[in-house]
């Protein structure tokens, strides 16, 4: 446990000193202001538009950070020569990967939290009401990043840098388009498309389960839905992360 915590601690130090977090934060602010500008184009639903665009921006930043950290930084850290020094100490492969995962997730969480705090301030300035749905939508983004980071870890273990980035982003898109794809594929008589439908349903989590951004103006908050989304996200995240650990443990540091 101490060894994992040590990795978490130094991953956070790495995060603080890495420019990518600062750049992402600035980019997130730009997206927020862009969301405000786009919302201004709307005739009557400026609040909803602003809410939707800004949270989508927040989600994108989280996913960008998850893909960048999980692939680029992790692969840099997991270069055999860099790993030799750490893994020759009393720490297992599993503890190392867990530490990296928790460290990256906490660092992304702080970037998102800071951006969300600024977003709330802007909401107050523009008289957009902040209700429980805002926090639920934010929690949904955190779940989205959690699952995304876990399959990014998985892809970074099975393939090289750019392929892992491309796979991760495409997979994230597929997961978000799950419902639409399902509808299209189920209504097709083509056998190959039915196979694709089966594969997508089997390996890709449905990210719309925790997409609560659209529910802003719904009055009732259904706790069971949120609970289900949490369990569903945790199960998929754990699945992909466990696969990553299994591969990492078998990997030779050549």
């Amino acid at each position, binding site marked *: 446990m*101490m*060894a994992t915590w*040590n990795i978490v*601690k*130094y991953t956070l*130090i*790495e995060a603080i*000193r*890495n420019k990518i977090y600062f750049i992402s934060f600035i980019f997130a602010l730009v997206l927020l202001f862009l969301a405000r500008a786009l919302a201004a184009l709307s005739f009557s639903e400026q609040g909803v538009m602003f809410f939707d665009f800004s949270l989508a921006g927040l989600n994108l930043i989280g996913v960008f950070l998850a893909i960048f950290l999980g692939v680029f930084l992790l692969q840099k*850290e997991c*270069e055999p*020569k*860099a*790993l*030799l*020094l750490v*893994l*020759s*100490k*009393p*720490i*297992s492969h599993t503890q190392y990967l867990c530490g990296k995962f928790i460290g990256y997730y906490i660092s992304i969480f702080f970037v998102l939290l800071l951006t969300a705090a600024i977003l709330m301030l802007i909401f107050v300035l523009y008289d957009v009401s902040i209700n429980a749905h805002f926090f639920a939508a934010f929690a949904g983004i955190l779940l989205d990043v959690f699952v995304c980071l876990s399959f990014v870890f998985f892809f970074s273990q099975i393939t090289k840098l750019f392929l892992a980035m491309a796979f991760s982003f495409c997979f994230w898109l597929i997961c978000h388009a799950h419902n639409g794809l399902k509808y299209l594929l189920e209504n097709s008589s083509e056998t190959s498309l039915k196979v694709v439908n089966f594969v997508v349903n089997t390996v890709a989590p449905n990210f719309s389960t925790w997409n609560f951004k659209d529910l802003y103006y719904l009055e009732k908050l259904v706790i069971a839905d949120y609970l289900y989304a949490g369990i569903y996200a945790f199960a998929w995240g754990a699945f992909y992360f466990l696969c990553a650990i299994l591969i990492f443990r*078998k990997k*030779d*540091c*050549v």
Partner: protein
Amino acid sequence: MNAIEVKNLNKSFSAGLSFKKNQVLKNLSFSAKPQCVTGFLGANGAGKTTTFKIMMGLLHADSGEVLIHGKPISNDTKKNLGFMPERPQFPDHLNAHEFMAFLCNFHHIDQQKNKIKQSLDLVGLKDVGNKLIKDFSKGMVQRLGLAQSIIHSPDLVILDEPMSGLDPNGRRDLIHIIKGIATSGTTVFLSSHLLDDVQRLCDDIVLIDQGKTLFSGSVEDIQKRTSAKFRLISIQNGSKKEEVFETYTEASAALQKYLEAGDKIIDFSPYQSFEQAVMELQQR
């Protein structure tokens, strides 16, 4: 009990998607005595680094066994083990002090600051502890690599090419430091291509070639095993006499005879250099 016991180690790597496998280690077996400096020698590609990585649990052997102080490698055995890889790579974002602190946490070391200071002092890096490692020269990186391997005062230190890429002064300093570590009772197992350094540092030698053990024994033994000629200089009846013998047996018989006769022996040493002896064994 031996500090290191390697038994029938086999390891092969597949080349890309090909089914053909390149066998790097072929039933490799050797041992290293405790509280000794053992040199691990072999040409490039002989399997030295692969063996080191298997010993540290960083590579999985196809078959065979590695025992460190009689136990297979685990987090428990790693607590008393220091390792310096060949050309170590450190994180860019940390300075030397922070990196050492990071590693100290794995060993639950008390009084970390003192321990780090001592280790950095020992390798001559006391003034650069707050400098980012990415700004270190090659020599400094090697020294830091050595410092991190001994920070927890391990019983056994494994050093992969510690002198590689260093200038003569750097090599001399590092040899001095390694000798100091060995004097304190720590077992040192190191690989090097610099045979002069190995001869100066090591008590024992393990020589491997193409994944097989060619020789395992003391530095003198390697010269006895080869066609080394032996030189015997003695004072007989007040005059100096120098003789060269073809074999160690002949030389030691003559030595025995002179000693019994009460002659004074000035020198009894292999005529062939250590380097020549190693090369001869490799070429056989």
